[in-house]
């Protein structure tokens, strides 16, 4: 998964719900560590503004 930075509003919802702690906050935007990401899709499921993309 990747987070489209221009769509992310920085609410932090995906950061805390990521089951493998693969999402960090950088400059108040969510950024996925692709090496740690398992592509489970939880972030896409919970994002209110559809910022995470496969």
């Amino acid at each position, binding site marked *: 998964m990747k987070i489209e930075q221009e769509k992310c*509003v920085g609410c932090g*919802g995906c950061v*805390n719900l990521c089951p493998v702690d693969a999402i960090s906050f950088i400059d108040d935007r969510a950024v996925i560590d692709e090496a740690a990401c398992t592509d489970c899709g939880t972030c896409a499921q919970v994002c209110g*503004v559809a910022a995470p993309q496969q």
Partner: protein
Amino acid sequence: MSKKYDVIVAGAGPAGLMAAQVLGEKGARVLLVDIKKDLPRVHRACCANLIIEPGTHREWVTCKDGAFHFAENRFSIPYSGAVIGLKRSVKVSAGGKTLTIAGKSPEGQVAVSYEKEALLQGMLARAAAQNNIEIMPETQALGVENTAGGVAVKLRSKGAEFTVQGSYAVAADGVNSHLVESLGLNKTRRTFLGRFMVASYHMEEVDCPYPESWITFMGKGHTLGGRGQIYMCPKPHGGATDKTVYELTVGVPALGGAAPSAKQEIDHFINTGKFASWFQHARIIDTRAAALNFLTPLVNPVEGTVAVVGDAAAFIETYVQGAIMYGYQAAHAIANQLATGAGLDAYARSWGNSFEYNDPEEIKRSTQGFGLHVLEDKDIDYLFGLTAGDDIHGFVNEFSDPLTVRTALFNHMTQIERERPVLAATLKRFSDVSVAEALQVNAQ
């Protein structure tokens, strides 16, 4: 082993900031961490209205003379931002019928709309002014462990992971708390409704026919997916604009797949929904979002030497004012514990006695109006139409509002039984619904 910190506070929202400030004033060495860089900036969808109904969380919060006052807990915190008194709560059906509740407070208000960023800025400034409070932005609390002599909190900052030791920890890291999860406490909680996602817009130039109102859009016809919650209210906006700003919030179940996202629903609502005409000139000045799990409250918010405060311990939320109050109470309990070796359990008792969702009977009373969401839109149109001209008074407090609505509708029961006997029977059944049923029914 001597530790660097007496208390490690995870989360610099209203609960964490209040806890840090009180502990700092008591002389404790405090570490306050938060994942954000710009701490008072609010990116998360949050209506942040002051709930002024006496008795909410066994407290009565008012806003007067530049401060929020907590009468029962006997403290105040400065608030220098703007406020908008909300004079009525208007529930709008898909067919445009309304049920209007006038404000029951001495000022004739149902709630007070305020600016959460201004509140947090003031709280942060007061915490930052204390030398014994160390503030670490851009730092995520990943987990906490009770150790032989206190707590170990695992942190991540700019890609590096490390552990800090303290005597006590405060988990103020919000509704999806990592610290609560790491302690295994979520296994003790039940899930209602699964997950929700939320999107909200702050907009200028909204042609809203209900000024100074808390507006709830009721019924399936407002959304693409036929489910969800939609609210709107005016919001003061930091001197950034002189125009009236409306905050529109849409929350829908996070179902994944082809189900509409909160973003699709809010865009539908303003562009093609039943009331799109209100928004034809609207300009979006801010977008916010949120995601949350609906878990029953923590029965015991103290685990070893970790106190869980605010939304981290709650079902849905404690409101901002509850976060402040529980942060205040937990900090005093920890300060007493640090000074005398006892007192932390006072916070757990207060939580158990004051957070409404801990009391099944209170939940039952408050959920007796939830069933409205399962009615067909034409039924809601009909019922709201009956209340035209009624003199209904109340607040927006989620613990009393459903009962206010139910009472208003039941005042017309004779007519409903005569004209719509099936609907009358359905309405009466809501009174007998169990808490679990009510909350699940609400999700459809």
